[in-house]
């Protein structure tokens, strides 16, 4: 996997040098640098694959969807606009949309067993915590999620990790759609402010 247009000099250099950022790697990938893309994969694949696995559940399907995602990111790399935010949110946006598309198209060909779905999504947040990550960042996100009201937490996690539409979330929780819309938006805004995330 050698670069087509230039040699990467950092392969043998001491670790003290600043590592390339995901933004650098995407810019290099846009010029056809497969080595840079491999580095981007190494840097981000556990975030992407782990999220996709949570949404689709089946490891074989998760791997398939993850491969599609990275191929799409490679194709779109020249169109990534740093003015609109970082690489990671961009990549995860593509990834989440694909994961959700997968479960929704599977659902349309095979009606989901409600009992099974409820059994498995009743406590989406707690099952996330079983795989608790030790990274400081992950701990911070967890604390912020814990600070939401239980109703907000349930709505956002069913939407994000459950891959449900807000209408489905409302049905699962037996509350009006308007209530779910508000819970999701208010919950996310609270998390955004607590995490200090910028637009």
């Amino acid at each position, binding site marked *: *996997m050698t670069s087509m247009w230039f040699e990467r000099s950092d392969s043998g250099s001491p670790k003290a040098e600043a590592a390339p950022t995901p933004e650098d790697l995407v810019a290099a990938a846009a010029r056809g640098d497969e080595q840079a*893309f491999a580095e981007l994969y190494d840097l981000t694949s556990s975030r992407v*694959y782990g999220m996709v696995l949570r949404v689709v559940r089946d490891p074989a399907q998760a791997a398939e969807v*993850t*491969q599609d995602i990275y191929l*799409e990111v490679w194709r779109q790399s020249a169109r990534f606009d740093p003015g609109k935010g970082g690489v990671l949110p961009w990549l*995860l946006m593509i990834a989440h949309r694909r994961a959700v598309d997968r479960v929704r198209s599977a659902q349309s060909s095979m009606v989901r067993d409600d009992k099974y779905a409820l059994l498995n999504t009743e406590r989406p947040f707690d099952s996330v915590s079983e795989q608790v990550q030790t990274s400081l960042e992950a701990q911070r996100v967890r604390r912020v999620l814990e600070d939401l009201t239980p109703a907000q937490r349930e709505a956002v996690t069913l939407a994000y990790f459950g891959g449900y539409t807000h209408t489905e979330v409302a049905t699962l929780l037996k509350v009006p759609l308007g209530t779910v819309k508000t819970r999701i938006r208010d919950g996310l*805004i609270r998390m*955004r402010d607590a995490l200090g*995330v910028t637009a």
Partner: protein
Amino acid sequence: MTDDLNVLAGAYALDALDDDERAVFEEHLAGCQECTEEVRGLRNTAAEFSQLSQAGPPPELRAAVLGAVSKTRPLPPLIAGARVLPLRRSRTVALWQGLAAACALVAVVVSAWGLAQHREAQRATNARASVVQSLLAAPDVRATTTALKQGQGTLLSSRSEHRLVLIARGIPVLPTDETYQLWLMSESGAPVSGGVFRPDEHGNVELPASGNLDGVDRMGVSVEPAGGSAQPTLSTVQVIKL
């Protein structure tokens, strides 16, 4: 900003809207700076959730991804401020033909009111019908129909009211990570976005847009990544003359 739609920003950021709701919201997003910024912040927040679900992919996936990548050409970059050239000659039809088409549409839309199952869809339909009706009442309304590569588009426009509606038929449905985008184009200056849109499952489009039409002599329709672009992707642009 429409409060009704603004409340959807959270569900949109979590991909929790169905296709129709998403199309309506993206239409709104293209003209609402406030919502665009909110969506960006909420999407960045949503990305943080993936901190909680990290899991290493199967080792063989790396080789599979990189193998596929080496056989795939990345798309070219979008060129900022580029001139967009007409791909096909457009044909202006007699005004009454356009009016007839638009009136037929209004009739369909209006009769669809009673059948609409969902309040949200009904509200959007309602708004569209009244947009077309009020535009038809403008003294300087013009109708232009152009054959596109696939399907055809009719533009109703009024320069005095700074408004237009794109009505298109037979437009191919795009994958979910892509969207159509309308552009207002003039001889001088870069194309200005007129909003993003997706056809319904029958390939039909009704897109109301507003903006200063002074100097605008053509509209472009391009294919862009979901959410739209700052500049049109040249290779995909098709032009409709005003």
